[in-house]
């Protein structure tokens, strides 16, 4: 973020006290369709059926059924954030520093751009056609290796199937964000380290990794939020049988399955808190990494 060099220099306008009026349309719109709805959820979580203030809804979040759904969402988000993060990082590193031909790098980035945007229902379809009970890979494994994937207890419609599907949009996002960061590692740093007698391990341990770590962790946190908020993919894949928080909220919207509207708001509020922590953490760490990587 560059500071503006000449704040309010050239144009002096007698009406500049009214300049904030220019923000009014945006403020009204954001208030009506973003901040307002969010506020309603937050307020509703602290109200009882009669509209009085209560903390009971927040307390009720700690019942096993709801805790389980948070735990499942956290698990699938964490697994795909760490797994997708590491894999995406290795891919980005291979593309930047692996000495691969230029077209490979271009192809990787193009694919990553498309795959990170290819999500929701079509993604679920693609994985059903590939790894579902009659999917392409499932059939291939049976025909070629005599290996019956679904006899091993694996199913696309369970935790690991969902995780495998989420990875398809998770690691490309990591590639997209980490590639510029890796490009920012200056050649001179490595040369300087090597002149001082550093091995590759030393260089990574004491130079590259400390510089990359905020960016690496920050992006993984972003991936966490990315998976945590996902609804369409999970809905299309499992039809609502996996008890994720988003699936629960969807069911609650369709017809008060919790038999307590305010508990529904609390459920959504808890989700906003987790998302805020994750996006906040990402922003903070990204800002830190910007000190070294331009």
């Amino acid at each position, binding site marked *: 973020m560059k500071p503006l060099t000449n704040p309010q220099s050239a*144009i002096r306008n007698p009406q500049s006290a009214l300049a904030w009026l220019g923000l009014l*349309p945006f403020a009204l719109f954001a208030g009506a369709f*973003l901040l307002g709805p*969010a506020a309603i959820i937050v307020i509703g979580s602290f109200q009882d059926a009669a509209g009085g203030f209560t903390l009971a809804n927040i307390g009720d979040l700690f019942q096993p059924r709801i805790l389980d759904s948070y735990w499942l969402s956290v698990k699938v988000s964490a697994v795909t954030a760490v797994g997708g993060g590491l894999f995406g990082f290795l891919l980005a590193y*291979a593309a930047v520093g692996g000495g691969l031909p230029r077209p490979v790098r271009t192809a990787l980035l193009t694919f990553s751009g498309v795959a990170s945007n290819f999500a929701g229902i079509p993604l679920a379809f693609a994985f059903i056609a590939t790894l579902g009970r009659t999917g392409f890979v499932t059939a291939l494994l049976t025909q070629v290796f005599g290996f019956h994937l679904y006899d091993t207890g694996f199913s696309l419609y369970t935790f690991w199937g969902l995780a495998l599907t989420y990875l398809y949009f998770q*690691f490309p996002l990591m590639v*997209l964000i980490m590639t510029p960061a890796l490009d920012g590692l200056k050649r001179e740093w490595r040369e300087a380290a090597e002149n001082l007698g550093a091995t590759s391990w030393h260089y990574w341990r004491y130079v590259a990794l400390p510089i990359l770590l905020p960016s690496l962790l920050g992006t993984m946190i972003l991936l966490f939020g990315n998976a945590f908020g996902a609804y369409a993919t999970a809905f299309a894949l499992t039809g609502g049988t996996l008890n994720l928080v988003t699936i629960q909220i969807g069911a609650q919207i369709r017809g008060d399955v919790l038999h307590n509207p305010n508990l529904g708001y609390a459920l959504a509020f808890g989700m906003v808190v987790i998302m805020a922590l994750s996006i906040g953490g990402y922003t903070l760490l990204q800002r830190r990494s910007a000190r070294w990587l331009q």
Partner: protein
Amino acid sequence: MRGRRRGSRAWAWFWVALGALYFLLPLYGTLDFSLRLRRDVLSLDAYANVLGDEQFRNSFLYSTGLAVATILFSIVLLVPTAYWVHLRLPRWRPVLEFVTLLPFVVPPIVLVFGLIRLYSRPPFLLVTSPVLLVAAYVVLSFPYMYRAIDTGLRAMDVRSLTEAAQSLGARPPTILWRVILPNLRVSLISGAFLTFATVIGEFTMAALLNWPAFGPYLALIGGNRAYEPAALAILSFGLTWATLGLIGRIGRGAPGQTPPAGGH
């Protein structure tokens, strides 16, 4: 030294090959699956069924309309706002950045929850009108639309352009329309395509607000058919590819760096 380099290159190939496998296997599997509607022969029947389905065309057109309305409205709302902030209220920039990032914090499922609660009874009975869905999509488009416009404005000298236009007698609407907008063309087009890619298949909000959009149609087909969903997945992938390819062509920026809110 050379040995290390060669070793690391082999590893690089290994990871890229693994990545390519992960990218391509589901695509190939889906393509193969989509061609097997007829027993023992490859055919395009699944595609013919999909493309011949009136509901497919209607829902796709409906979502295209939503996307166009979203794009136009978000340009009309965000360009003057961002311009004004650059020109007159630079201190508000962090606030705008914060608000336009909020759709990441409030995921679509939560946002639509709040919207339904807020607008399902008089005096604000809006759930009966697709305007509410478009408004929600405009909110979803905030993070990348605003970012694109902001980046575009930073790349030009807003102040000098404005002063030059003013000294020639142009009034603010003229300045926006004939000076700022043309200079923002590349940013706006990439923002618009990203918005299009997100809105066209959006499921969560369209389904929960009950509109006959493309996303809910996809879900319906997924529940009722075997091979058509695979064909739809291939078509969607092609559409995403084409959209992002156009962005890459038009703007040399990095469109993928902001993940779209709510596509998943």
